[in-house]
């Protein structure tokens, strides 16, 4: 039987897999072994799998490239989860892993076999090809979505559990490598509370997997972290900086919202690939990916490796490979010097070494089978015939790009350092610091020292310590400037070969060349046209190469070319993580469960859940008209004004008069804003000399409270206090001809018309509980609105229901209430009025007391009153009695040319079971609305329906029932 893990090496020092245990998972339908600690990518690599998925546009085979969670090449589907970075996701027993963008199979993909590649899909192909005819776009879109895209979203995936957490610290350090740890320790030492974020499973950064430092440095740093005041967040991606040092970070299914007074960006570097022919073939890996495979998972990247480099890291890598027993086909170094300590051993081991040479191409059909190298001149251009080296792996260690995206989003300005061929940030915004390899430090000691200085500067920013002396800063800057260059800026001119600049979006150097030739020659335009740097890695793998290529084509410097704007998130994030735990506040009354137990159908009103009906709204209407009903109106706004200044305040807030209202009496009131627009309405009672109790609409309660509070705090607050009583009292409306008889059973108060007439309020014990009882009537029936302390709400409600049993009491919901009020012609603010409605037009002219010295809206209403309102809110009834026009429908006036002019709208409409006809409220031009019986036309579903103007209540116009 063949070895299932042919490239798994003997145990390596520092590896993180548990070789004593084994798990298995499936990939592409086949079972693979792994050890706990393996990632999907390391386990597949150990099994010799090279191709993980296919590319986004051309469906080219792709395999492990960066091994650091940046590039798109190793994205796979895990179960129902698409776009999983296989180099980051730990293997679990029975995990079902599948390739992406491959159909019918990874090996035999139709799109790639059909050759629908770059020949037919050049840059801008979508824009050029699918513009016309526009009607066909939906079909194009469907076809494109099937062909392109990343993974498959399963609509049936169950709701995940996501949440958020707020973090606070003095100093946040992003990056837990040697410089980040060093910065965190220094800041903590100075007394700062430190938050330390790292995207790896353990702190240490490159010390975990690179062998250019011994493990004691890492252990030493980790021990110090444990004993310091540092909150460590590993496996955490910081994906955005926002104003006032607000960081968004993600660990698993949790979003952290972290705030810090100072931030150290020790974000490290990202290894980037170079451009050469067929540079996307599986088997081409970045050097850091190879070192991760070797040193964390004990996996050889292949059997025969060509190391391509331009710095010391390639030699470190070659030494690692040699020590691990992996065959080296060659070391190819752009530089002409050979001064790395390992070069002697490597040469002695017979490894061919090519200095002053570069990689110009890779060969192979589904994976690398050879590397093509060539000598280069001083400008980096190939000279001579070139050489073909047989190999199955190419390890690229030619350049690093400081990971500065977060710092750019925080306002840092990019500067291209020609001598280092890297970006840096200058100036760095106040309170933000960059350290370590992100700041250009390469050697371990320099990184540690640079981190320490950044930590000290951050603590000094908080005045916890003194900043380092200037000589120290100068010395460090000098040391850093002496460091060896680590990045190659060699770039070839586009020549028609297949060289991918952007792996995420399948953009080649020819595409960039074409786009620039077509006029998209600024980097921002180029990005949008070619989609370069717009893929899942957000340009981490491609933007610097794109800039170099662009500047070469345009013959200008990289700095002149400029870079595109960085925006968060800097790494992909699940929408569920951004949504977090479901937090949709819901308000319920004190008898909510009673409603549910009685089968109420609940409706949402603002944040409140209210019973819409209990099965039959029409029966509920009839019961109120003929017997007695009980409705829960707890959401009504209820405010108390206390103090001798209350009447003055009310006179200013309402359009009505209040000063003359006597104790125990109730008046209907309307509030307007200063433009004379109706804000809210309700009843207001004078409870005693200096105490007033008012109610507002349910949905407008919060706004009304803020409105009154605003005026109180703006100078009208003398001698008056406002208290929100909305939640303190539950409110029930007992309505119907038998309501007095029901209430009489529960109270000793005289409820007779003389002792307790209409529009009065009384403090009354109901079922033993002290309540405020109003005699008012929105439904048009004799009714009592009982405001009961909420904790005793259920007790009083049940007592009323029980007492009403012999009178046929039944609960009624919002729907029945809406019909009942419409039969009385009462408007609902917000339903029958809008942001333009004034009380003169809304049939409330009787309430407007323009003779008052002043009130909110007076000036506007005075103006309107000169000519009268243009529109009026009036009642209407339908000519065809059973037709109920939908609320919101337009009222039209047919023109001679057959067209319809819109002249008004329906604000409320219902079929009245009492009147046996369809009635409603509508807005009409004043000339039509002022004329009772005038007919007008409603446009409904392509038909014209006739209706007639009605003034006043439809039912009981004299109000005998509610005053009975």
């Amino acid at each position, binding site marked *: 039987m063949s070895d299932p893990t042919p490239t798994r090496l003997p145990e390596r020092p520092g590896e993180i897999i548990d070789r004593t245990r084994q798990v298995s998972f499936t990939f592409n339908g086949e079972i693979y072994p792994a050890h706990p600690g393996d990632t999907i990518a390391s386990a597949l690599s150990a099994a010799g799998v090279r191709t993980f998925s296919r590319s986004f546009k051309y469906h080219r085979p792709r395999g492990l490239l960066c091994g650091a969670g940046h590039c798109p090449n190793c994205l796979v589907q895990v179960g129902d989860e698409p776009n999983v970075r296989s180099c980051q996701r730990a293997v679990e027993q029975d995990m079902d892993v599948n390739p992406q963008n491959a159909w019918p199979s990874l090996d035999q993909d139709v799109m790639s076999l059909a050759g629908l590649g770059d020949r037919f899909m050049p840059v801008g192909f979508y824009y050029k090809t699918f513009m016309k005819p526009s009607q066909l776009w939906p079909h194009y879109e469907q076809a494109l979505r099937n062909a392109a895209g990343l993974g498959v979203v399963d609509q049936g995936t169950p709701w995940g559990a996501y949440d*958020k957490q*707020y973090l606070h610290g003095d100093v946040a350090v992003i990056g837990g490598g040697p410089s980040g740890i060093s910065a965190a320790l220094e800041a903590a030492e100075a007394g700062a509370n430190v938050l330390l974020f790292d995207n790896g499973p353990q702190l240490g950064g490159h010390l975990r997997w690179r062998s250019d430092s011994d493990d004691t440095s890492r252990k030493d740093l980790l021990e110090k972290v444990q004993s310091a005041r540092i909150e460590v967040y590993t496996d955490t991606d910081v994906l955005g900086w926002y104003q006032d040092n607000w960081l968004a970070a993600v660990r698993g299914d949790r979003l952290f919202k972290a705030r810090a007074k100072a931030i150290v960006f020790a974000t490290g570097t990202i290894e980037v690939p170079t451009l050469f022919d067929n540079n996307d073939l599986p088997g081409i890996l970045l050097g850091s990916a190879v070192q991760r495979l070797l040193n964390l998972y004990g996996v050889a990247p292949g059997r025969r490796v060509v190391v391509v480099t331009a710095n010391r890291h390639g030699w470190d890598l070659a030494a690692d490979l040699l020590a691990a027993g992996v065959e080296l086909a060659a070391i190819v170094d752009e530089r002409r010097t050979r001064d790395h300590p390992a070069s002697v051993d490597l040469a002695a081991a017979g490894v061919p070494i090519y200095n002053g040479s570069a990689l110009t191409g890779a060969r192979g059909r589904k994976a690398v089978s050879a590397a093509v190298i060539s000598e280069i001149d001083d400008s980096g251009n190939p000279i001579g015939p070139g050489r073909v080296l047989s190999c199955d792996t190419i390890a690229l260690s030619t350049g690093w790009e400081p990971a500065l995206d977060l710092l750019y989003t925080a306002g840092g300005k990019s500067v291209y350092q020609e001598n280092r061929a890297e970006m840096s940030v200058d100036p760095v915004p106040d309170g933000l610091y960059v350290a370590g390899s992100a700041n250009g430090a390469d050697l371990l000691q320099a990184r540690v020292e640079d981190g320490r200085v950044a930590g000290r500067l951050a603590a000094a920013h908080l005045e916890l310590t003194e900043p380092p002396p200037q000589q120290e800063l100068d010395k460090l800057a000098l040391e850093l400037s002496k460091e060896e260059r680590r990045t190659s800026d060699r770039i070839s001119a586009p020549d028609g070969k297949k060289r991918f600049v952007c792996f995420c979006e399948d953009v080649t150097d020819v595409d960039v060349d074409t786009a620039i030739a077509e006029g998209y020659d600024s980097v921002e335009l180029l990005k949008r046209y070619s989609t370069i740097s717009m893929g899942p890695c957000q340009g981490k793998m491609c933007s610097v190469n794109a800039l170099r290529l662009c500047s070469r084509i345009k013959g200008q410097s990289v700095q002149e070319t400029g870079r595109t704007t960085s925006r968060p998130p800097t790494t992909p994030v699940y929408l569920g993580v951004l949504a977090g735990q479901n937090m949709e*506040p819901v*308000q319920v009354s004190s008898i909510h*469960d009673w409603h549910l137990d009685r089968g109420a159908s609940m409706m949402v009103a603002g944040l409140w859940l209210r019973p819409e009906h209990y099965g039959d709204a029409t029966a509920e209407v009839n019961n109120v008209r003929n017997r007695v009903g009980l409705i829960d109106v707890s959401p009504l706004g209820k405010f108390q004004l206390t103090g001798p200044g209350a009447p003055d305040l009310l006179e200013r807030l309402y359009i009505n008069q209040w000063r003359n209202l006597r104790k125990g009496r109730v008046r209907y009131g309307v509030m307007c804003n200063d433009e004379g627009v109706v804000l809210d309405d309700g009843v207001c009672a004078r409870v005693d000399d200096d105490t007033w109790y008012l109610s507002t609409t349910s949905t407008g309660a919060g706004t009304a409270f803020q409105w009154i509070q605003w005026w109180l705090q703006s100078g009208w607050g003398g001698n008056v206090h406002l208290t929100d009583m909305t*939640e303190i009292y539950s409110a029930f409306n007992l309505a119907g001809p038998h309501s007095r008889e029901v209430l009489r059973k529960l109270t000793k108060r005289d409820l007779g018309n003389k002792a307790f007439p209409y529009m009065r309020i009384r403090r009354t014990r109901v079922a033993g*509980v002290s309540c405020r009882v109003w005699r008012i009537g929105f439904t048009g029936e004799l009714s009592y609105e009982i405001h009961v302390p*909420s904790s005793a709400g*259920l007790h009083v409600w049940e007592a009323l229901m029980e007492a009403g049993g012999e009178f046929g009491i039944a609960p009624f919901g919002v729907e029945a209430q809406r019909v009942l009020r419409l039969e009385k012609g009462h408007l609902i603010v917000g339903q029958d009025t809008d942001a333009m409605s004034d009380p003169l037009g809304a049939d409330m002219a009787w309430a407007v007391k323009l003779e008052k010295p002043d009130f909110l809206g007076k000036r506007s209403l005075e103006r309107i009153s000169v000519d009268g309102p243009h529109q009026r809110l009036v009642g209407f009834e339908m000519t065809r009695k059973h037709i109920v026009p939908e609320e919101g429908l337009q009222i039209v006036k047919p023109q001679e040319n057959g067209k319809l002019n819109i002249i008004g709208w329906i604000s409320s409409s219902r079929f009245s079971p009492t009147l046996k006809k369809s009635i409603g409220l509508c807005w009409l031009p004043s000339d039509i609305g002022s004329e009772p019986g005038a007919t007008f036309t409603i446009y409904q579903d392509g038909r014209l329906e006739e209706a007639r103007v009605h003034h006043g209540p439809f039912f009981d116009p004299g109000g005998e029932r509610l005053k009975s």
Partner: protein
Amino acid sequence: MPESSIKLSPLHEIARDLEATFTDVDHWRMPERFAGVEIETTSATTGVVLFDETAKGRIQVEGDASDTVLTSAFTLPNLEVGAGTHHDGTNVVRLRQDLFYLSVPPGAEAETIEKVRAQANGSLVTATDITDGRTAIRVIGPDAPTLMSKVCGLDFSEPSFPDGHARQSSVARTNQLIIRNDLGGNPAYSLVGSRSLGAYLWSVLMEAGAEWDIRPIGRSAHHELEKSTT
């Protein structure tokens, strides 16, 4: 007021569904026990628990002279806004220059209001019993600060939010008064907010606390924890 307990917390149905046993507290029917006193106290001292303290009396005192009036009515130190003090079973917290929040033992509301009014001496000081309009949930346990940081943007670390202090903030998208009132050496926070939102807030806290096996505790366990404080 009838003899029987007719006052119910907005969390009553939740406790009933959890098969809590109940007890009467000054006309309130409140949960006595859920899983058992020992389990409940252990959770409170090792993880995090929720306690329904809605039955406690709550008084709001407003007015320019409220500071002077309260100082006369109770023995109060000078309180900064956001600071609080405990006196004779009454917790007093200053919410604004002219606004105080008092929490008193169940049933002591009327007497407290009377005490305040007696000191008003003609100045406009309004003392309102807001007990019925609020739900009060106490979050107790060593993991309480972390749980709070999942539902509220405030900094719950010791120096920023010390014991005895109060803050008004958004908790799970609702307005809450948060009073830190440690219990038995463990951090504790009383969340006082709209009664109608109580059940919602409780469910959010239970969900957010699932990672610590959060559980509700009844009055017995709470009493045990209080005993260990004194």
